[in-house]
């Protein structure tokens, strides 16, 4: 971490990563990344394909545990607690650090059940009425309530792509997470749906720490306040978004931004 980057770090970051290395078997996919994520800003990860954006994102809620060959080195904390400590419970961690995937993946259940799934497994609702409240609130926050309130029992897979993705965001919100990770949430969506999701991210900002991976530099510019540029498993540059796009420090960043590769 360069000095300058450190200065960027907020006083009280929500999550911190220090010298994180990720290996897939013998292959190193992340080569010592340190970064801080805070509540007030949306952080965007950009970089060419295969540079390790998704891999790094998934270390933040230990989704990499599900890949048998993956191994993580270094320290990552959530509110100062080491999330790779043996005392950390992954199940709780994942409830606190929600995730939204590239392709919308609603469960093949009703819209209601999609939202209720998380609160139910974590026992967050004491009664059916409680659950109703949670479902409505989550759908509202996800900006989907008006569109689906009359058909909560329809299957979640019957929605359009953009609606599905908002449903997935709503599902993540329903367990009251503190951080939301999004891995190219719009890449499978059309421009209009994309615009809606971007708007939603704007609204959610401040309430949750949000990290978004994107291939689309314009999108990064639109939605984020902080941008991290990855290349070949390294964090090349991390800074205020407008600076990165208008005035990149590193040569590689500049080449990438101006479309020399990728």
């Amino acid at each position: 971490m360069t000095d300058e980057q450190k200065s960027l770090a907020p006083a009280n970051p929500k999550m911190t990563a220090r010298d994180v290395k990720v290996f897939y078997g013998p292959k190193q996919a992340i080569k010592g990344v340190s970064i801080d994520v805070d509540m007030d800003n949306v952080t965007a990860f950009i970089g060419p394909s295969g540079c390790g954006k998704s891999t790094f994102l998934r270390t933040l809620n230990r989704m990499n545990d599900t890949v048998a060959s993956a191994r993580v080195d270094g320290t990552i904390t959530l509110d100062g607690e080491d999330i790779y400590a043996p005392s950390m419970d992954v199940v709780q961690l994942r409830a606190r650090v929600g995730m939204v995937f590239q392709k919308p993946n609603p469960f093949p259940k009703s819209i209601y059940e999609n939202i209720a799934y998380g609160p139910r497994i974590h026992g967050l609702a004491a009664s059916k009425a409680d659950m109703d409240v949670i479902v409505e609130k989550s759908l509202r926050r996800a900006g989907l309530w008006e569109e689906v309130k009359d058909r909560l029992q329809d299957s979640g897979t019957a929605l359009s792509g953009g609606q599905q993705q908002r449903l997935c965001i709503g599902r993540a919100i329903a367990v009251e997470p503190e951080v939301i990770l999004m891995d190219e949430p719009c890449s499978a969506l059309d421009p209009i749906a994309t615009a809606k999701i971007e708007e939603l991210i704007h609204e959610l900002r401040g309430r949750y720490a949000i990290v978004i991976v994107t291939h689309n530099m314009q999108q990064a510019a639109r939605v984020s306040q902080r941008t991290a540029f990855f290349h070949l498993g390294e964090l090349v540059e991390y800074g205020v978004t407008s600076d990165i796009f208008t005035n990149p420090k590193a040569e590689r960043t500049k080449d990438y931004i101006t479309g020399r590769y990728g």
Partner: protein
Amino acid sequence: MSSPLSPAERLPTDWKSDAMRKRIARRYAAERRFRLLGLGAVLLSAAFLAFLLVTMMGNGLRGFTRTEIALKVDFPASPLLLDPQAITDEALANANLPMVTSSVAEKMLGKEADAWLAPTAWISMRDAIKADPTILNRTEVIRVPASTDIDLAAKSDGTPAAEAAVKRLKQAGILSTGFNWSFLSSSDGTDPTQVGIWGAFKGSLLTMLVTLVLSFPIGVATALYLEEYAPKAWWTDIIEVSINNLAAVPSIIFGLLGLSIFLNFLHLPRSAAVVGGMTLALMTMPVIVIAGRNAIKSVPPSIRDAALGIGASPVQVVFQHVLPLALPGILTGTIIGMARALGETAPLLMIGMRAFIATPPGGVTDPATVLPVQIFLWSDEVSKGFVEKTSAAIIVLLVFLLAMNGLAIYLRNKFEKRW
């Protein structure tokens, strides 16, 4: 549902609360239970298999051995009227060897000794004379099979009378139990000490040959057509449905088909490997088609695009690219289908292969039986000696089948996903 809520209405969840901790502990316990349940299911299934195999081995291994009695035959003194210079099959057949054999035994061991020898014991005598006629001029020790009672008593436990006889024979040092080679080289018979599986085994081989020759090309051709060329039309749907259905039609119904079409309508020979093979080919074909289609499907479309893109015709694409790549998968399916056909019994009962056939078939139109039918026939035999022979035949069949399945699994693992 209640009125709109203010966003701050719910506090962040308190994950550290006692209730929450307990809840998580419960969830983890459920997780462990579920996992153990799964492991239990796997182990139980494997245990069934192990139990089956061990039982069969336990019963069957004894079937590969045979108890023999060494008879000391003083040929010149025996009532045998044979000229060592003129030993022919005819002469031997007329020499009343059974009588001679039992009289030799009685002279040597006493009155009841005849019952200790297998009814076919004299055949060993005949074979010995045929192999070396000069023994007729001297005294020779010839090992002849013991009767079923003695055999069982020698190997495990038998009737008290037989046990006593075994004890006597053992004391005399003329009883021995050894590997029964003739079990592998001879055919069906009525005396359990003499029977073998060679005839049925050869029948199985011939039947499988017919099955393979018919079902493999037709199955592959069908799979190629359906997967690569067939237009979407009502009649291709019918073909698909037929094939999927044939793959699941009870095997006995194929037997009824063979009976009425191949035997009664086409007048093909009864009990012959060719009819058995044709019937089983109809059963195996759909299996090959389905496996073949899956294998063909797994050839990436990019390969087809590549070939088409440089101007290969659809037939060239299929025969030069798709088929070679799909072949391991097709072969795996074929082996599995053949293994199933090899173990199949029910349809063959309907087309006359449930028969006593003591001569191994010479060709596909000769009357033949197959291993599983032989097992079925023996399981129904009166003599107790057949129990272990049945299990022994089962071992042979199982070894054969496990080898085939093993080969299929090996092929599948080896060629799984190469692109």
